[in-house]
């Protein structure tokens, strides 16, 4: 059981990470709210002792992804909405970069997650494989395909491989 101050600090530290993952999977404000709360309730009540901060963050990411997947299977999930509808309630949108987000969100779900974890959170393929319970070669393959699809939708040269 976590203390109140630990919970408040965790919400402060990881709220944006949880929000981004929810956006990748759910595309619905109501579902995002539910998952957001369930992740931090689990953190407060059921989280293990963490070895370090990166262990804690990896745990939060895994729990969020699992909660999102459960929500996607749930009969009670809300209808999906556009990023514009979500933006007013959830996050501050940078208009110039919304096309990048749209491109990422248009990828298949399994590619969106690896793109986010690799390009934004800067996890290696090995770490992503451990987090998602997938073979590292699978992660490499997904990253390569995601890059190819993003290159097509975003256009242009000079992207890192």
């Amino acid at each position, binding site marked *: *059981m*976590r203390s*109140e101050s630990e*919970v*408040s600090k965790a*919400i*402060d530290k990881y*709220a*944006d990470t*949880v*929000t*981004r993952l929810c*956006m990748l999977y759910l595309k619905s404000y109501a579902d*995002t*709210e539910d998952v*957001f*709360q369930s992740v*931090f*309730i689990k*953190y*407060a*009540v059921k989280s293990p002792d963490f070895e370090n901060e990166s262990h804690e963050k990896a745990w939060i990411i895994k729990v969020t992804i699992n909660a999102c997947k459960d929500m996607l299977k749930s009969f009670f999930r809300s209808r999906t909405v556009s990023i514009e509808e979500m933006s007013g*309630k*959830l*996050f*501050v*949108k*940078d208009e110039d*970069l*919304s096309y*990048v*987000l749209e491109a*990422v969100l248009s990828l298949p779900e399994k590619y969106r997650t690896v*793109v*986010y974890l690799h*390009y*934004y959170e800067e996890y290696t393929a090995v770490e992503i494989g451990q987090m998602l319970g997938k073979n590292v070669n699978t992660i490499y393959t997904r990253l390569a395909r995601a*890059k190819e699809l*993003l*290159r097509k939708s*975003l256009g242009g040269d000079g*992207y*890192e491989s």
Partner: protein
Amino acid sequence: MKAEVKAAFDAVKAGKSIKSETEEKVLARLRRYNGHGVSAIKIALPLAVCLLIAVCAGGWLYFTPTMCISIDINPSLELSVNRWDRVIGIRGFNDSGKYLGYAVDVKHMRCADAVEVLINSKEVSSYMNKEGAIEIGVAGKENAQSQRLMDDIRACTKDVEGSRCYNISTEELEKAHEAGLSCGKYRAFEELRKVAPDVTYEEVRDMSIREIREQIRSYNDKVTMSNETQPDDSHTCIAEDKECDTGQGHRYGANNKNSH
């Protein structure tokens, strides 16, 4: 691309309202668990454990016998009775006793009701027509329950021709069971053995009470006849001789002579 993806996601932030609402709800839940309120499981679990213990203890108490009622005609059977005067077990000591226990199910009845149902059953009536004698013993510690059971059983057998009620101690109950006999049959056996030392448990097991009493009477008659040639001031009778019966139960121990 990496830079653009990073910048795009950087712009995604949790809104203040979702953070504050979540913090409120999570802290409220924590407080419930930490005993600012008490979690339901902290109340339910001890209650469930207490209930389980109470049920087990109650069950143990209900099924623990405190008294034994021995019924002997020729069927010999015993009723185990708990502290609430309920019949919790029936044991037949011979084939006819086992059959009677099976045919007339008196389990969980009040003891007096059980005795009444048994002696009024068609099975017992047919045995009584043949044998004409029934003995009912109340075996156990001498206490309020044994007195109460004796009073109840006397009340329901007062109009039964050839019936006799008595108390028997726990020591004799144990000896009877060691010998594989009901209390009443064991008691009769002990009396017969005084006049016929060669008699064995097996011989009396399938004898009716009437037959055992007749054997005792016939041995006593032989003793009386042989004593007529040698006058003796002392007169010993067995307390269950009808002429001596005062209608009161006698407590039987090692010596059970009543002299007049």
